[in-house]
């Protein structure tokens, strides 16, 4: 589609070396509309964070992109080296889970935010300082002129996360990548940061990719949803539709397993079995040993990803029997 600002096609990432190389992300295709928001949900080992790091060109040593493309506003991005950094600068920015490790303890937060407009946009030192204060105000930092002189350790977790968001926005990116940005925060503060992200998206038109393990959190920020399992995208669609009527049994299982504040009628239900590790992903559909809808075919053939028409919503699933799943 032409409106997509970020388009990922068949991204495959592997980890390790030689014979023991494992595929951690397999044929992942995603797309984010300009100013849109995409939530990527999965449990540990689902490949959601590696996918995000590949998008950002920040793969750790020993991890490599085997195939696939990432296009930002129609331009293909390299994955490694100085070219990868240059091609993303000012266009893609990332916010990490732990706000303390993203900040340098020996510089004031104002100086750290100001460094971005100065280095990336070539602004003067004084203009950058003013811009930093403006950015801190934009992310809801109270009293930004004063707080710009604070060091990271003098700020609370929520305020540090706001500083990181301000730094990410300082380069005026088209897409903001968020890797569990609220997991380390308290619920009341988490609610504030989620609200801020929605607000920034509206005001600045920046698209957001939000990776999380928490379906309820993703529901608040993302219009579109992609669910990952064992390195694959197994379901996509508008968040509301996917959460109301999942078309993949793993999504359904996750929803049933959530300990929900409102749903007191039935106790949370467990997905049988355990998450497979990457070295032992089952053949056929990787979810079949844990699936209550599985047939013999599921163990033999990977159903592949396909699109369904569900009213007006464009949805996709990697299940052979989406009708059965959607019927409950």
């Amino acid at each position, binding site marked *: 589609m032409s409106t997509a600002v970020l388009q990922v096609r068949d991204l495959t990432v592997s980890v390790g070396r030689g014979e023991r190389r494992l595929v951690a992300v397999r044929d992942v295709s995603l797309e984010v509309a300009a100013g849109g928001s995409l939530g990527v949900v999965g449990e540990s080992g689902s490949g959601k964070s590696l996918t995000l790091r590949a998008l950002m060109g920040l793969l750790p040593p020993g991890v490599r992109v085997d195939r696939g493309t990432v296009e930002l506003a129609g331009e293909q991005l390299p994955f490694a080296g100085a070219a990868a950094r240059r091609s993303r600068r000012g266009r893609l920015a990332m916010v990490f889970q732990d706000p303390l490790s993203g900040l340098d303890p020996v510089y004031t937060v104002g100086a750290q935010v100001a460094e971005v407009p100065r280095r990336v946009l070539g602004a003067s030192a004084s203009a950058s300082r003013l811009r930093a204060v403006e950015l801190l105000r934009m992310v809801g930092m109270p009293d930004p002129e004063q707080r710009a002189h604070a060091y990271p350790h003098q700020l609370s977790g929520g305020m540090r996360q706001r500083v990181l968001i301000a730094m990410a926005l300082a380069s005026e990116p088209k897409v903001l990548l968020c890797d569990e940005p609220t997991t380390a925060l308290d619920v009341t503060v*988490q609610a504030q940061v989620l609200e801020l992200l929605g607000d920034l998206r509206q005001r600045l038109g920046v698209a957001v990719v939000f990776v999380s*393990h928490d379906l309820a959190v993703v529901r*608040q920020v993302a219009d579109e949803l992609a669910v990952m399992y064992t390195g694959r995208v197994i379901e996509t669609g508008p968040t509301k539709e996917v959460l109301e009527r999942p078309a993949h049994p793993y999504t359904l299982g996750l929803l049933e397993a959530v300990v929900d504040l409102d749903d007191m009628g039935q106790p*949370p239900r467990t997905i049988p079995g355990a*998450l497979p590790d990457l070295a032992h992903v089952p053949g056929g559909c990787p979810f079949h040993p844990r699936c209550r809808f599985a047939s013999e075919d599921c163990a033999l053939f990977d159903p592949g990803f396909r699109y369904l028409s569900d009213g007006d919503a464009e949805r996709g699933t990697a299940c052979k029997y989406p009708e059965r799943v959607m019927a409950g």
Partner: protein
Amino acid sequence: MSLGLEPPLDHAPSTPPRTAGEGRVAVPLLAAENLHVSFPASHGQRVTAVEEVSLSVSEGETLGIVGESGCGKSTVARCLVGLLQPGSGTVSLRGERLRPRRTREQRRAVQLVFQDPYSSLNPRLSVRSVLEELLMFHGLARGDALAPRCSELMALVGLPEDALDGYPSSFSGGQRQRIAIARALAVEPQVVVADEPISSLDVSVQAAILSLFADLRDRLGIAMVLISHNLAVVRHICDRAAVMYLGRVVEIGDREQIFADPRHPYTRALLAAAPRLRPGPDSVAARLRGEPPSMTARPSGCAFHPRCPRAEPICAAQLPELLPAPAGSSRLAACHFRDEQG
């Protein structure tokens, strides 16, 4: 399960029974009375982490303690199991005051399950050796009786018997938490204190561990104190709940009183901020301003007043007492406006 290889711990209460709500006379199984805990800070000062905390759990009952980070909930848990000595206040078991150095029996009676099963298990000990050592130390089993008892414990927490010969590194997070629970149950405790037992686990595993806790409570009648920042977890398995803010209990009562009709504005704010899968009409409730203040700069009066949507001048001046809300109820709330409904 063979509970009671030894006679149950039955101590004569040394203090007179307290009157619980609704005229019942009962000695709570485990009770904390007026706990104060402070830690040394820089410049010779002390930071108060827990103030005037009193709570109790009765036989077979599950008490949840909720609050955000830094509210003192884990400190209370550590006082309950005796890992930490409160500066003042007492912890008593069946009415008997526990001295700083607990007897072996008393330690056995109150067990702790930690949050992170990756750091709470010794990587060099097999599951069997952990359990056997405990059973022998407490004189619960020896010789030929050890193996069947270990197998029984594995069955109790839903692990296969051959898991006994594995080491922690060969288990997933959920399995490790089951091992940690087996370790707590091995000594046949009367109370299990669990500090965020599911928050480091994956979503699909959380439900399983939670239902294991519910199952153990129902089958073994073990009392539990469950510490969590997750309101949903507390609502699902606790009979009673206590909400803490900045070192104090701000509301405590029966589960449905707390969740259906919260009387402290902080409880209401926590409920409004919790992410929900199916947002109701009230889910766009006013977001709480600000962040939890630090212990070193505790606001005057009610510590919650700078963030409170309901605050009035009296809140900054006077600390509200923990009193029945509404009058005569067994639920207590520490708010000047506790008689107002949200």
